[in-house]
C-alpha cells in the first residue's frame, strides 16, 4: 500500500469509527448481470466522502425499508471511490439489492474487517483459490497483486464454479488468462458439450498449479466445505498452515463486534475476520455448528 492509500484508509477508518452504525448514501451508477442470480453493482458516494478499503474487507449494504446485509467489496482498491459489490440473490435483502437500478440509493456502512495479507506477501508466490461467489472478495487482492506484479513471484488464480454459466467476471477471466505473468485455471462441476475447460472440483487444480509451496501464500475463499478441502490440498502440496488465509462468512449484524451474531469461537468474524490466517482458527474450523 502506498502512503497516499494508507492515509486514505486511516481517514476512512476514523470516519467509520466515529459513527459506525450510520449508513452513508451511495448511488448506483451501473448494474452488471454476472450470472442468472448474481449482479455486480457499481456505486458512487451521493455526498462528499473519504473512502478507502483494503482487499478482503466488507461493507454493510442497507436497502431502505428492507434490511441490511454484509457484502464483500469486489472492486479495485486503487479506485475506492467507485465502490463495487457483487451480490448473489439468496434472501430478501440480497434480492432487493439485485433488483436495484441505476440512480437508486443504498446505505453503506464500512469498510469493516480484516484484509488479505497482500502487502505482507510481497516477495512470495501467491495462490488464489476461489469457489463460486468467493471470487468476489478475492478480486481486490488480485487487482492489488497485479498492480504491483513485479513484487511477487508466480501468481496463480484457481477458480471453481458450478457450471460455465455460473462463472463470475467472465470477460475479466479471459483477459487474465491472456497474461504471461498470471496462471489462471478455471474448473466447473458440470458442463455440456461446448465447454473445453476443466471439469471437476477446484482442489484438483492445486497439485498442478505453478508455485513453490515453501515460498507461497495462499488466499482461499468459497463455501466452507470447499475451503476445508482446499486447505487440505494446499497443505498436502507443502504450503504451511501459517501461509494459508481464508475468508469466513457468518451472520454479521452490527459489523463492529457489539452484537455477537457472528461469534466464531473466541473471535468475531466482523471485527477479527473475515480474513483469518488458517492456523489461528484451525481448532474451531472443524467444530460443527459453531
Amino acid at each position, binding site marked *: 500500500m502506498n502512503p497516499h492509500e494508507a492515509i486514505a484508509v486511516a481517514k476512512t477508518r476514523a470516519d467509520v469509527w466515529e459513527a459506525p452504525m450510520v449508513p452513508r448514501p451511495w448511488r448506483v451508477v451501473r448494474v452488471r448481470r454476472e450470472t442468472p442470480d448474481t449482479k455486480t453493482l457499481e456505486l458512487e458516494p451521493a455526498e462528499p466522502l473519504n473512502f478507502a478499503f483494503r482487499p478482503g474487507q466488507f461493507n454493510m449494504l442497507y436497502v431502505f425499508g428492507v434490511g441490511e446485509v454484509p457484502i464483500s467489496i469486489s472492486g479495485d482498491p486503487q479506485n475506492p471511490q467507485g465502490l463495487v459489490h457483487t451480490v448473489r440473490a439468496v434472501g430478501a435483502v440480497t434480492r432487493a439489492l439485485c433488483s436495484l437500478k441505476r440512480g437508486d440509493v443504498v446505505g453503506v456502512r464500512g469498510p469493516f474487517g480484516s484484509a488479505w495479507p497482500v502487502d505482507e506477501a510481497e516477495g512470495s508466490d501467491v495462490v488464489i483459490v476461489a469457489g463460486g461467489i468467493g471470487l468476489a472478495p478475492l478480486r481486490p487482492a488480485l487487482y492489488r497483486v497485479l498492480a504491483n506484479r513485479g513484487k511477487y513471484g508466480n501468481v496463480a488464480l484457481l477458480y471453481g464454479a*458450478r457450471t460455465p454459466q455460473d462463472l463470475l467476471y467472465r470477460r475479466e477471466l479471459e483477459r487474465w488468462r491472456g497474461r504471461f505473468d498470471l496462471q489462471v485455471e478455471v474448473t466447473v462441476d458440470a458442463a*455440456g*458439450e461446448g465447454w473445453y475447460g*476443466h*471439469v471437476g472440483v477446484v482442489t484438483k487444480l492445486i497439485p498442478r498449479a505453478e508455485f513453490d509451496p515453501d515460498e507461497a501464500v495462499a488466499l482461499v475463499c468459497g*463455501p*466452507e*466445505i*470447499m475451503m476445508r478441502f482446499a486447505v487440505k490440498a494446499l497443505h498436502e502440496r507443502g504450503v504451511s498452515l501459517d501461509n494459508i488465509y481464508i475468508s469466513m*462468512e457468518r451472520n454479521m449484524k452490527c459489523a463492529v463486534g457489539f452484537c455477537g451474531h457472528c461469534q466464531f469461537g473466541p473471535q468475531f468474524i466482523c471485527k477479527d475476520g473475515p480474513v483469518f490466517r488458517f492456523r489461528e482458527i484451525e481448532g474451531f474450523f472443524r467444530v460443527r455448528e459453531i
Partner: protein
Amino acid sequence: MTATGANQRSKPLKDLLAEHPFFRDLDEKYLELIAGCGRNVKYNAGEYVFREGDISDTFYLIRHGRVALEVHVPGRGPVVIETLGEGDVLSWSWLVPPYRKQFDARALTLVRALAFDGECILKKCEEDPRLGYELLKRFLRLVGRRLQATRVQILDIYGQGGK
C-alpha cells in the same frame, strides 16, 4: 486413433513411464515389464478414446492434452462429469469386473497418451504378485482420490447456500 508406434525421436517407453507421477519410484524391472505392454497413441480433438459399454481392456496415461469423461443424459445430451489432463490416468475399469467402460471418453484437444494392454499387465501381475500388489496400491490411491473428488462434486457446494 493413431498408434504412433516407435517414433525414432521419442524416448523409450520405460523412460516415459519413469517420469510419470503415477509410476514414480517404481522398481526399474517393473517399469520394464509394464512398458512391454504399452504403446504410444494419439487422438485428435473430438475423437473418442472409448465409449460407454466398450470392453475395458486398456488404460491410458495422458502425456499431453485433455480428455472429457461424459455420460449421455437423455434430453440433455452429453454431460461432462470430469476432465483429465497431462499426468492423469484414464480408466481403471480394466481391473475389475465387469470389465466395461462406464463413460464415454472424448479428446477435447489433441491427446497424446501411453496405452496399456490390461490383459498383458494382469498376466504379468499373476506371474509376479509383488508387481500386482504395487499396481493395485497405486490404482487404489487413484480410485480413492477420484471418489473423494466426486463426493465433493455431488455436494453441489456452489448451489444456494454456498458463499
